[in-house]
């Protein structure tokens, strides 16, 4: 079996987080709205309508371009991409061609523990098209329906060079890209809802054969990106091994069947007849604006991840998990302000906090718990005022009610039994009631001690300090001898 090199490039679109659309004042809050309710003459492309650019679109796209270390071009020009489709009211899409917002950047990310860099060819802005439905209660049979609510939503398109060499890398690169745009408040990067979309170009080559570029579309999750590209690698490998040709074509990922399917239609490429849009004047991006945005650029995911690794001595894997979601990373660091034990906080967040969020179906910002609250609870655990087990259940209640740790403890009547004398009494009780276990322990069976500890815990309804209990029992038992 010969050695194949996989080459992958990504084309990522993300919807920009503006309140109004790219070229008109219609609201961008279109999810779940009735069709054709967030429209106006401009985004409907009515005769005589004209576009005017939303300032925020430039700011957000600039943020992304600068975060990706792109070179910002002095003049920004919009081009028209001409083609016919019902979800494109004007018969052309306002996009950018040879003078986009940014060119020549790069992105760094970790893939399977190794730091990688991929070059970013360009970042440009364009308007989104509408939505088509092909079946529905209201639709007459044999027709499709057009909803223009999404027409004119601003998109940033980021194109990488084909520097990725595996489906894993492609997925990890995409995830980092997503994190960056989320971190910057540029997009909410949600693949399921369509605010982040990814197409890929993949080719396999060997020492003797030059690769053929296949475009893969319709991958609607990170997992799908990984699976689809993995499938493609296998498919192309097989064809190469069998000496069969690979067609340069577009293929769609079929999530259900878990295969890519050829979307080969006409052989010729679509002729988009790009030309500068005469309705939108070229504009220049001022140095001051670039400097201002650069200075406002927050620490990016990779930088934060690496800082967590050095400053808090976390592993790459631990740091990566914390840094995935900016709000979680913020929560982590805010907690550290009151309780400076990074490992412990990390541990609790990635296990218990995540568990609670999952069960509640909430994000950390929606959760009723604050970093100070978590810090308080963890302090108590560290000081052994409560056991870890108890703390977990206290945390659950804190999530549910928003109450502070001490409130929950007080309400539940959990008073931590630290009184040795009291424990001794309980221990003696337990010993009396369990002579067999005592005998077992005295004859060398450690397990019996565990059982007795358990019994004390039962008696105290878990409020006894396990370690103290152990010591007390041993003390009492040894005095029994």
């Amino acid at each position: 079996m010969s050695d194949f090199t996989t080459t992958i490039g990504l084309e990522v679109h993300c919807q920009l987080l503006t309140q109004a659309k790219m070229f008109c004042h219609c609201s961008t809050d279109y999810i779940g709205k009735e069709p054709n309710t967030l429209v106006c003459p401009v985004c409907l492309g009515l005769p005589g309508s004209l576009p005017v650019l939303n300032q925020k679109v430039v700011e957000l796209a600039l943020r992304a371009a600068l975060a990706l270390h792109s070179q910002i071009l002095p003049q920004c020009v919009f081009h028209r991409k001409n083609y016919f489709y019902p979800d494109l009211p004007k018969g052309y899409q306002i996009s950018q061609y040879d003078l986009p917002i940014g060119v020549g950047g790069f992105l760094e990310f970790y893939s399977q523990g190794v730091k990688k860099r991929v070059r970013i060819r360009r970042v440009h802005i364009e308007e989104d098209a509408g939505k088509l439905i092909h079946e529905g209660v209201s639709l007459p049979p044999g027709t499709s329906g057009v909803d223009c609510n999404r027409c004119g939503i601003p998109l940033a398109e980021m194109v990488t060079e084909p520097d990725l060499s595996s489906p894993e890398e492609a997925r990890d690169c995409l995830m980092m890209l997503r994190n960056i745009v989320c971190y910057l408040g540029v997009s909410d990067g949600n693949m399921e809802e369509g605010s982040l979309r990814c197409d890929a170009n993949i080719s396999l080559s060997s020492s003797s054969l030059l690769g053929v570029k296949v475009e893969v579309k319709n991958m609607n999750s990170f997992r799908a990106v990984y699976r689809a590209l993995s499938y493609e690698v296998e498919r192309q490998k097989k064809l190469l091994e069998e000496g069969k040709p690979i067609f340069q074509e577009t293929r769609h990922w079929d999530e259900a069947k878990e295969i890519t399917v050829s979307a080969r239609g006409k052989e010729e490429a679509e002729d988009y007849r790009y030309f500068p849009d005469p309705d939108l004047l070229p504009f220049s991006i001022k140095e001051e604006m670039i400097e201002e945005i650069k200075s406002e650029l927050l620490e990016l995911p990779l930088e934060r991840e690496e800082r967590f690794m050095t400053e808090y001595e976390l592993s790459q894997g631990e740091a990566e998990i914390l840094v995935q979601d900016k709000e979680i990373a913020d929560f982590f660091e805010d907690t550290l302000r009151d309780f400076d034990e990074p490992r412990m906080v990390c541990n609790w967040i990635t296990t218990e906090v995540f568990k609670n969020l999952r069960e509640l179906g909430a994000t950390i910002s929606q959760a009723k718990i604050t970093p100070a609250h978590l810090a308080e609870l963890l302090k108590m655990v560290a000081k052994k005022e409560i056991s870890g087990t108890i703390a977990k259940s206290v945390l659950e209640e804190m999530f549910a009610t928003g109450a502070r740790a001490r409130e929950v403890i007080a309400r539940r009547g959990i008073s931590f039994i630290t009184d040795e004398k009291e424990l001794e009494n309980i221990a003696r009780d337990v010993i009396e009631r369990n002579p067999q276990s005592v005998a077992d322990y005295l004859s060398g069976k450690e397990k019996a001690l565990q059982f007795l500890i358990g019994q004390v815990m039962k008696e105290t309804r878990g409020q006894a300090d396990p370690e103290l209990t152990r010591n007390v029992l041993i003390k009492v038992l040894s005095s029994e001898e």
Partner: protein
Amino acid sequence: MKIEEFRDFTIADYHHLFKEKKISPLELVNLFLERIKREEDRIHAFLFVNEEEAKSEAQKKAENPPDEFPPLWGIPIAIKDNICTRGIPTTCGSKILENFTPPYDATVIERLKKAGAIILGKTNMDEFAMGSSTENSAFGPTYNPFDRRRVPGGSSGGSAASVCSLEAPLALGSDTGGSVRQPAAFCGVVGLRPTYGRISRYGVVSFASSLDQIGPIARNVEDIITLLEVVSGKDNRDSTCAPYPPFGKSEIPAPEEIRKIKVGVPREYFPSGLEKAIGEKIQEALEKLRGEGIEIVEVSLPHTDYALESYYIVAPAEASSNLARYDGVMYGLRVEGDNLQDMYFKTRTLGFGKEVKRRIILGTYCLSSGYYDEYYLKGMKVRTLIKQDFEEVLKNCDLLITPTTPSFPFFLGKEVKDPYEMYLNDVFTIPSAMAGLPSVSLNCGYKEGLPVGLQIIGGPFEEGKLLGLALFLEKLLALPSPFPGFKEDNNE
């Protein structure tokens, strides 16, 4: 009162009548509506007469006259049918928009209404503004009021003819390569193409976006000035509209200053193909100006000869993209088909006329992959050269004077073997349009009952100087204002 009394009126004269209570806005509107009824069989300037609304608007105004009249208060105006008027059909002279009624007003319409104007109706035009005769309208041609066998020019033929025959005192047209100036010349009225970006294009159905401009049409320069003041100025809904305040009368220099103006006459605009009588009338006008002490010099715009070709690459290219939205999906004509593609093809094939199709094909070709550099890029480069020609010349002169058209209004139905021949009608109006410069056409004389148009071209945003000279010349020439058919009216 009778309509012929308004033959030489300016807006100020109408307002004077209103103030003196000699006529009410409703009576005035009715007079024009009657005139339209009488003339329309002969002229066919209007596609839609806004009778009901005009009457009720006029009535409202009559009942509530203000102390100070807004600039166009009570004045009826005709609007070219490619300008969106809410609730009033806007067809662009095309079958594909035959039943289209816009749900919004163009910015210029909003401004007209705010100034108190009354929309009299929508005027006929070459389909999507593509043409120089108004014969390309899907709804029949408009006839030149001076001679019904001849064209009124285009594409704003309906607007120019309506003002000429006093069916409306004022009109708005649109000018891309000459579509206001050429019909104004053919109909003996005044037509202004302002600096590109002077007037908002929001609500004006696009033909060639980097060239389209709204143009006021009137019977005298004074009214052009008033109209320009009302409709011009910054508009946040049009990115190409310059961020300057509206034009103001104060920008017009006094006659003493006008006399100090230096006028350039580009030799390329007097080719051998120019109709002799037209050349003569222009020279007579220039003589009169010389008599007033104005310096006239010969200048050269060396790339004039390439302007037509460059225009017929750039304009159809932009048009082919601008007209892609007419696909039957959301508005306008739809011809049902077996499937989507079928619907697209049938709708557009049936909905568009021959000239429009020709330009769409031409434009698509010029933008097409493999041809972009050869055509569109070249066209844009030649445009730069044309602009530079004017910039150079305007360093040494204030204004330029040229004929507006190379020939007199030609006969209707002239079947041309080569469509390019028709395009030649715009040879004098295209270059200044390509450079985005303001230019005005006004009547400079009659020959065998037909008007001769004289064009003045100025520097960007120099409408003040431009209209100043136009006013000066108009006064100097003291020509009778157009009112063809007056004799017939008198016999009633």
